[in-house]
């Protein structure tokens, strides 16, 4: 089994803990990616104040130093090919429909448009389809979305780690793999700010809260529209000739 050296850098490990390793069965040409992602409330001390914060959305990105194929992506799900659609037609009271239509248009407009008195049929269509919600969703280009189901709750818990994130395969030895965890600015949320001397939570107006969120997240590196909250690297140290 080849030897990989793993490195992880994390700006807010309380808030988002990441591990990055290769798994069983890894060869230089096929790397099993093991990632553990745990989220919770972050806690940082800024002078006389302690702030707790969280994120509501994160994107996991992988990149390799050579062209790779991705297999067994975690959070991947093929959509059902067949969907079911039920159509129902309902007869409604003619007088009532006509009255509503006239009321809506006004008598003169309705008359001028020649509204038919016989047009009194209402159709309703119902579509039934089972929907699945995933906290971790695989996307293309070696990316994964991580969020709670409604998209606004803070990330709290272990989201990735039960199974390998994916398997990367290549015709040439894969020497370097990079992992980055990005968050959009708007997903960084301050939960509370406490005065260290009195121990009391400070009341924050919305304006102050938003300014502090931008200020706090400014220390993170930016990539495109996202902020890199954590990154990791796997380096093959005994590459075959």
């Amino acid at each position, binding site marked *: 089994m080849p030897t990989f050296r793993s490195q992880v850098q994390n700006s807010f490990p309380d808030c988002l803990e990441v591990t990055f390793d290769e798994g069983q069965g890894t060869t230089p040409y096929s790397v099993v990616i093991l990632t553990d992602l745990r989220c919770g409330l972050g806690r*940082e001390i*800024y*002078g*006389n*104040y302690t702030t707790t914060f969280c994120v509501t959305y994160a994107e996991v990105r992988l990149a390799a130093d050579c062209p790779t194929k991705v297999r067994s992506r975690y959070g991947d799900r093929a959509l059902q090919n067949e969907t079911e659609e039920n159509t129902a037609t309902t007869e409604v009271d003619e007088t009532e429909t006509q009255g509503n239509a006239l009321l*809506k*248009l*006004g008598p*003169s*407009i309705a008359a*001028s*448009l020649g509204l038919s008195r016989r047009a009194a049929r209402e159709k309703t269509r119902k579509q039934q389809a089972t929907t699945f919600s995933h906290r971790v969703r695989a996307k293309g280009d070696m990316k994964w979305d991580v969020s709670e189901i409604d998209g606004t709750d803070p990330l709290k818990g272990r989201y990735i780690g039960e199974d390998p994130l994916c398997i990367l395969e290549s015709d040439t030895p894969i020497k370097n793999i990079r992992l980055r965890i990005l968050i*959009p*600015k*708007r997903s960084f949320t301050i939960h509370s*700010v406490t005065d260290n001397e009195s121990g009391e939570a*400070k009341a924050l*107006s*919305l*304006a*102050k809260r*938003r*300014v*502090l*969120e*931008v*200020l*706090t997240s*400014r*220390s993170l590196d930016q990539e495109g*529209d996202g902020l890199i909250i954590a990154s990791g690297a796997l380096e093959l140290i005994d590459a075959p000739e």
Partner: protein
Amino acid sequence: MRQNDIEAFALVMDAQTEVFSELVDLSGLDPSTDFQGVDLSGIDFKESDLREFRFRGSRLDFCDLSSAMTSSRTLDGVISIFGTRLPALHHPDRLVPQTVVSMRINRRVKSRSINYFGSLRKAATAAVQGAQSSAKNDVLSALTSAFLDGDRIDEWSAKPSHITLLRSDAIYLREIREITKLPVTSILRAMLKLANTSINPALKTEFANIHDKDALERVLITMRRRAMELMPPVHSDQPELPF
């Protein structure tokens, strides 16, 4: 976090002011770059000077910008402004409601820039065809354009209920009146501009593209007739009606 950021954190926390732009000044953040792609929904921007701010990619839902100073570029590229009170028109470097409304419409219907007469035509078509998802936006745009074009601009700007109208299902005159609380005469004045386009020779080509032209004509005639019934007598100091 850098030392100056820690100091800025304390400055913002201890600040007595709640004015957004002053808080940003204290924080040392760059208003032209640091507030892009953030969620600023719900903030009251009272008395803020936002002329240097750029909110591209940000959400500004349910904000109050009515007493903020903005430039024509402040709201460029914002993701959404649902329920937001727009800047007052008395500021010299103002953002007129039409700009914001057009941004919203452009994003929703993915149309190209909506020109004035195009909106009026679409509003008339929508009135004929009945309520559609974008119909209220078209009516709204037509009304806003007409007001901005006419002498009723102050009256319109004083009532930011056009956002409510944008979010409603209103399409017909009665519903628009209930939401905007504008006098019937004001709404009709806007609609009359719409009606008047049919007798403007320069706009004949615009109407040539409407498929249901007969239906449109009927609506325009009805509108004019209704307007004649509802409009108050024209006084000598008021401009003559266009028909």
